[in-house]
């Protein structure tokens, strides 16, 4: 089957760079599957799991905390704020993060809408991390 170049980078390292058949990204407005020849797009990502398919099977599942993706017909580049293979996620750490994010959200209740949105995004990302850790 046709493939395209998939790259996943976080500020701290290059996690993945190879030819894959399909990648499912947690785009801000819903999950998005990328196949070779996709129309050029730039999307923001929310916290969630990226699933990479090679040879008809899901070979990699990585949690990203948010970020961006650039899609062109022959390439898909994901710039993640942070990225961890799902198998290495710790549920306890994720739950601590949810609690922190909840506290931050409560604290920001009286703040500007932008700040509230930012803390909300953080909370949702943390919740997605718990779900991903549970599923692993």
């Amino acid at each position, binding site marked *: 089957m046709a493939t395209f170049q998939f790259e996943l*980078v*976080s500020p701290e390292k290059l996690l993945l760079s190879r030819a894959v058949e399909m990648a499912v990204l947690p785009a801000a407005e819903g999950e998005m599957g990328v196949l070779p020849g996709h129309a050029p797009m730039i999307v923001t990502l929310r916290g969630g799991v990226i699933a990479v398919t090679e040879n008809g099977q899901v070979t990699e599942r990585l949690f990203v905390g948010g970020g961006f993706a*650039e899609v062109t017909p022959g390439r898909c580049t994901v*710039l993640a704020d942070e990225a961890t293979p799902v198998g290495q996620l710790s549920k306890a750490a994720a739950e601590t993060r949810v609690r922190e994010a909840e506290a931050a959200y409560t604290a920001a209740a009286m703040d500007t809408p932008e700040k509230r949105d930012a803390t909300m995004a953080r909370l949702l990302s943390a919740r997605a991390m718990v779900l991903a850790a549970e599923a692993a």
Partner: protein
Amino acid sequence: MASLKALRARITSVKSTRKITQAMKMVAAAKLRRAQSQAEAARPYAERMERMLASLGASVAGSPDAPKLLVGSGAEQVHLLVVVTGDRGLAGAFNTNVGRFARSRIRELEAAGKTVKVLSVGRKGAAYLKREFANRIVGEISMAGKKRVEFADAQEIALRITAMLEAGEYDVCTLVYNRFRSVISQVPTAQQMIPTMLPEVGATDAPAAGGAQALYEYEPNEEEILATLLPQNLAIQVYRAMLENSAGFFGSQMTAMDNATRNAGEMINKLTLNYNRTRQANITRELIEIISGAEAV
């Protein structure tokens, strides 16, 4: 001439100094390797960020409601310098070089009638600039006690810079740091961060795009993507500067400690020579005394 005992004491003291500088050199070399690989690991992200920003920025830059982070506040009266230096000394002229570079820049800007504010990342830069520009320093961030530079630290600094921009505290933000050219050469560099210097679209886009520049679709939309992309871009620039700074610092420290070790060795040789000469002179003198004493009997 110094007594034998004093000479012996000095030789021991220089020897232990040499041991310390030698150990510091080894430690710096190990840390340098780590800092270098970390800096390399951060490069792909920065490159791709730049590419994305180039295509995005070009489409938004012209519009009047472009975000402040991208186009600045329109004026250029108040300059913010973010000066990145090491937290510790004993690294040759590393910190002084950035300090001097920042100082001449501050003077230049002030001579042109601008107001300058300084945000110092790293203790040494603040210490250096405080002597002359104490009232311009608006903040001091110290990374002392941290083993390595984390992206989260850079993000925090970037948040602070953004908050200051939103509060209208400055118009132009420039990053001053030591660019890591090689282990023995670090170049003080100034890099303008706000307004964002957009890279040329054509220059950065790989030919892989298939000839014509592809038109991107944006989801949710350009403005919203930019609103998250720009702070991230700021953070990555700060992060890069901090990484280059730490790699450069250890490189410079390694060279400085290597020189110190060599100088200590030279000094030990000289002192030992001196010590032996004095010892021989003493023996000769004692012999003469004994012989002339025996002759007198």
